[in-house]
């Protein structure tokens, strides 16, 4: 595989940043890279799309979602679905073996259950147990809160975060939900309809190290070169005409 950083011949959207320089990705690039990396780390394609959604939502709200996703994927890499998913009962959504739940699976499933009895309906209190990199759960909960007009509160050992119709909570979330793992309880109340969440004007940058790490995972979804593969790309006709 050609890893020359100035190889222009790769149809690659991931930029070649170095060292500690800021690495701004567009939301489209963040979503695309994170989706591929999540797939490379073992998620199904549909769940990998959810990872792309979460990371790019955070980028558009000024939080370095790709770096948090990287931290989570490096922990979850190679683990079985059963060790990452919640087991759903009306009052607890903990993992059956009490492993840390994957925040992408948890968030997407919570949205799936939005209008079901075991789901996050008004007055529900749900024990989530340990959640890996919980900031990645936030985009799902913010979307859920807006869609179903809910006030969603996350309670952990270090404090409480209330997802509501203002931007201030996001700063708190960016500080307190970025631990590698937190034991959380979620509670839900009915609220006034939210306005749509307003992305901050400045998107978050990520880091060169994050991009390199996510790229390494993403490359697992690609197929090594062969003569047959080179031959079937493009046309045998000359372009210098």
């Amino acid at each position, binding site marked *: *595989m*050609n890893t020359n950083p*100035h*190889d*222009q*011949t*790769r*149809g*690659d*959207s991931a*930029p*070649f940043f170095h060292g500690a320089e800021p690495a*701004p*990705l*567009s*939301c*489209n*690039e963040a979503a695309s890279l994170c989706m591929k990396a999540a797939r490379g780390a073992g*998620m*199904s*394609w*549909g*769940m990998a*799309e*959810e990872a792309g*959604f979460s990371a790019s939502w955070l980028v558009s709200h000024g939080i370095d979602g790709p770096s948090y996703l990287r931290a989570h994927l490096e922990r979850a890499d190679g683990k079985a*679905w059963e060790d990452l*998913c919640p087991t*759903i009962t009306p009052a607890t959504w903990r993992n059956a073996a009490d492993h840390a739940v994957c925040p992408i*699976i948890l968030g*997407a*499933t919570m*949205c*799936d*259950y*939005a*209008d*079901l009895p075991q*789901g996050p309906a008004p007055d529900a209190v749900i024990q989530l147990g340990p959640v890996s990199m919980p900031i990645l759960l936030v985009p799902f909960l913010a*979307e859920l809160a807006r*869609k179903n007009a809910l006030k969603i509160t996350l309670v952990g050992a270090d404090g409480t975060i209330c997802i509501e119709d203002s931007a201030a909570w996001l700063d708190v979330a960016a500080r307190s939900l970025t631990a590698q793992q937190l034991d959380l309880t979620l509670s839900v109340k009915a609220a006034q309809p939210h306005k749509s969440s307003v992305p901050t004007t400045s998107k978050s940058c990520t880091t060169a190290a994050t991009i390199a790490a996510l790229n390494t995972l993403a*490359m697992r*979804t*690609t*197929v*090594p*070169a*062969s003569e*047959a*593969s*080179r031959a*079937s*790309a*493009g*046309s*045998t*006709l000359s*372009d*210098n*005409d």
Partner: protein
Amino acid sequence: MSVTKLNKTSEAARFMRPASEVMRLKRMGSGHPTRLSFLRILLRRLRSSDWQVDRPVWNVNANGVGHGVYRVKSDERTYSLVAFAHDLPDDMRSDRVIATAWDATFTLFDGDPTPDDIARLADNVPYQEAGRVSPKELTLARANRSVRLFKHVVDALSEGRQPDTNEINAVRYLMRTTAVYGSGKFGASDRADIAQRPELAAPFQVEMLTVWLIRAFTVDIVEHMAAEKGGARAVKLDRDTRRSLGVGNSTGLGMAPFIVRHPVLLNNWMIAREEALARVRAQMDADPDAILGLKDAHAAAILNAVAWHSEHPVQVRKLHDLRRDLDLIASQLDTFDWAVTLPWNELWLWGEKTLTYEGQEALLALMLEPHGALIDDLADHMGADEAACFRINGAMSVADLRGVLENDYAWALAIDFTTPENIARFWYVSEEKLEPRLGERATEDGATLEQPLCIARLVAELYVTVQDYDETKPVAALLLAHPEHRYALRRVQITKNHPYAEVHDNLIAANMLPVDLLRCKLAYFGASQFDPRSDRWVRINLFAGAPFPDEIKTECMG
């Protein structure tokens, strides 16, 4: 025509062609540009609103190396194409995405670039994928000369004569683009951040504006080089000849996955065109001006079919069909009785009975052409808010899911995925070049890394699971037990509300032609003279015959 005579959507509904007819690869692969194509939408806007076009910077030397800026300006917004012209050795000229240098490189800048912006862009845009642009840039593009025609035109103009008509007609563009990137690629502005602007709401408008301005650049640079070479003897390109030139474009397999990955967008493109056809068919009578417009469009289509060349056997056959069908349409129009009730519908039904897919889809484009007042508003509905359709409705019952599968995906469930010819191919991304490719399952490695592009097969696998699952449960429970179906289930829910979202064919079949997917998308762009170079690689022409910046305000065109 009075407004009351314009058929409303509800009256046109019975004339809509069903997805089972429209969404077949063979028909999609016969698509023609229409007045709802994206470059036509752009040209209508540029003509009708207060946009002014100029070229504030031209800093190019005698060898054709330097940069220029083309500016499109309204009271509220300015867009600037920054064009870098290079001196490329012949042996480096390739149309593939794997090229490393080009004759010219471009970016569409959001506003008026300062000298600092230009300097920053000069350090990045010429390197394309290995450079980096910023949210101030909307597109990144590059183009290569048509070596034969470019040199011929420079030489002729420098000697004070016009280029040879045969040479012009054999190519019909001076340069061809080999990539036009938008939507946040390489650090450019995200589509979501600009989609609210009225002039950019329709699909691919920044890309089309980029190419339209590149076309002006291609003529400016040959005239510049001819003047440098010939001095006082040199002449400018004859304006009719100039008008006939478009911008070539070379496109490979990378474009094919796009229309599979964007089901809501595909639906909106298709439904707008189908609604347009239905509105035309639903008219009780024919306006005399519209009949004249149809005949003019037909005459132009004949000329286009004459000019359209290809050496690819599949396309040669299709061109033969098209030319024959256009003659049949001519005979039909000579004797057609426009006094019947629903005359446009009569014409259409005749076409469906008589013409090949090539001819039918060409007739569609002809019938839309004189009906701008009736259908142009549909252009406002061709964009898509994909994020709004992303969330899965987990409360849907498995029984309902099964119903949708059996109704909307009967075409997919009917495919036997146990036969070798029906699973002959697999789509993958190449590690070496990160480009999408299509492999042969029986002989190539890598099928375990298959991309999820054969929706029919994924849906068939979902159906197997659904048949053994408790029907009273919600799909949320099914997904928790079977996360591998999340991708397919999202599609199925999208298709429930977007009937034209899926290509109703097996995209891994042995006989599938990727160029059919390319042609469908390129027809929506407005591309003409579709010329496959293989079954997965194609050249086209954009904007041939369209006005140049100095012409657009002074003439009437649809």
